[in-house]
């Protein structure tokens, strides 16, 4: 590691692990994100490096008052030749009335590997949470060798989120959605294996596609826990059997 600066509510932990790569755990010591919070992160992965970023627990986005500014999170990553960055946080839990503008920007070399995972939970049904108002813009932009490859943009701005989520074209009443993107020279070759792993009925809300040198998995499920069931089935294939991040072991 060449350089580390951390301030405010953000901390990084470096659990000792076996293996050649580095594992880093983000910790939000404020316990969650409130309206008006601004968090910024910059990450540079040098040539040939291998970094796994995860989080200590699911991020919580708390209720904002109607005239509060949205919380803003901006993360930018540069991934040099033959380097690997795996971005595998636990999910994000949105509470009723939360407002978040989040943006992740990745600039990667063609020979590099980038894996992105994000699970969003819109109200924890098990705890009786149902959402009415949300203001969320959550965007992932990936450039590969300078060329724009991915613009994955979630925009959920509604005063009646439960009704919107009930639409079959949106979530058919389910409250959890996962997006996983893998960009690497081998990403597309993994499609048949990933589809096989997603064949069991408990993964019926998930599907995988591959094009333009990337593999994308999307999924809907009733809860964060059910999203995780499917994610745990495919991560070993996508990560070539490497052990799960420390904070994921259960």
């Amino acid at each position, binding site marked *: 590691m060449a350089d580390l600066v951390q301030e405010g509510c953000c901390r990084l932990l470096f659990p000792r692990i076996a293996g050649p790569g580095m594992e880093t755990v983000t910790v939000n010591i404020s316990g969650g994100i409130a309206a008006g919070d601004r968090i910024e992160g910059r990450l540079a992965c040098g040539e040939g490096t291998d970094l796994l970023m995860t989080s200590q627990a699911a991020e919580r986005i708390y209720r904002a008052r109607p005239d509060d500014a949205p919380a803003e999170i901006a993360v930018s990553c540069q991934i040099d030749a033959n380097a690997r960055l795996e971005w595998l946080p636990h999910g994000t839990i949105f509470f009723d009335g939360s407002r978040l503008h989040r943006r992740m920007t990745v600039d990667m070399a063609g020979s590099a590997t980038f894996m992105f995972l994000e699970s969003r939970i819109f109200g924890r049904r098990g705890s009786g949470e149902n959402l009415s108002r949300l203001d969320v813009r959550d965007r992932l932009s990936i450039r590969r060798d300078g060329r724009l490859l991915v613009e994955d943009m979630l925009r959920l701005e509604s005063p009646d989120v439960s009704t919107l989520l009930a639409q*079959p074209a949106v979530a058919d009443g389910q409250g959890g959605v996962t997006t996983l993107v893998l960009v690497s020279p081998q990403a597309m070759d993994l499609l048949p294996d990933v589809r096989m792993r997603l064949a069991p009925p408990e993964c019926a809300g998930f599907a995988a596609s591959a094009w333009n040198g990337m593999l994308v998995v999307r999924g809907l499920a009733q809860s964060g826990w059910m999203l995780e069931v499917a994610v745990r089935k495919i991560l070993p294939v996508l990560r070539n059997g490497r052990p799960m991040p420390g904070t994921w072991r259960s």
Partner: protein
Amino acid sequence: MPDAGQAMPTGMNTTIIPMTEHEPAGLDFLRLLSWVSPAFPTGGYAYSHGLEWAVERGNVRDVETLCAWIGTLLRHGSTGNDLIILHAAWAAGNDDERLRDIAEFACACATSRERYEETVYQGEAFLRAAGVWGVVPSEVARAGVRWPLPVAQGLVFRRGGVSRGQAVLSGGYAAVAALVSAAVRLVPLGQTDGLRALSRLEPVMAEMADRAQAQTLEDVGGACFGSDLAAIHHETQETRLFRT
């Protein structure tokens, strides 16, 4: 009409219809009729935008559920985003560099392989066909990027003299009409039910076309996870009439 005052990028060799004072009124409207006609050879009849899976799952089964599905795509999903993209391409006018950036952006917005293929295959077929009118950038100016449908429509409409408002409405109409026509064949629905769906969707088409004209590419985004997933499930659907 394209702005007469807009400078042409030098060396781009872009073909533009000479819009002279002597051109009779109504030519823009006549061209638009051709460009949004279902007979215009973009191959649109072969793409269902994931609707084929939604019909198989029973999510779309009658006029009611079809209008809910399409209305949600217009308000919160890919079809509404395409209006913003079409509008941006229309507004780019003769700026070929800007159009290439918009095309790259629109390609990056595709949420799965079939969504990507559906938009670039139709967009590039649209450009080939519109070449007859001489309203398409040269091959040199088009090389090196793929051309998604709303970008192709926006640039052709602009160069053909179609006004901003009509351009965005026409793109929305063409997309919705294609989805309704797919549903008529898939559900199946009677012709009259298809027309009922079109007529019921007019207000939301008009509203979203209006909204798109006040938006920029920064506003593209959506929450139609179910529709995006339907398009991916369609890739492995066993019995398929449609390519997407």
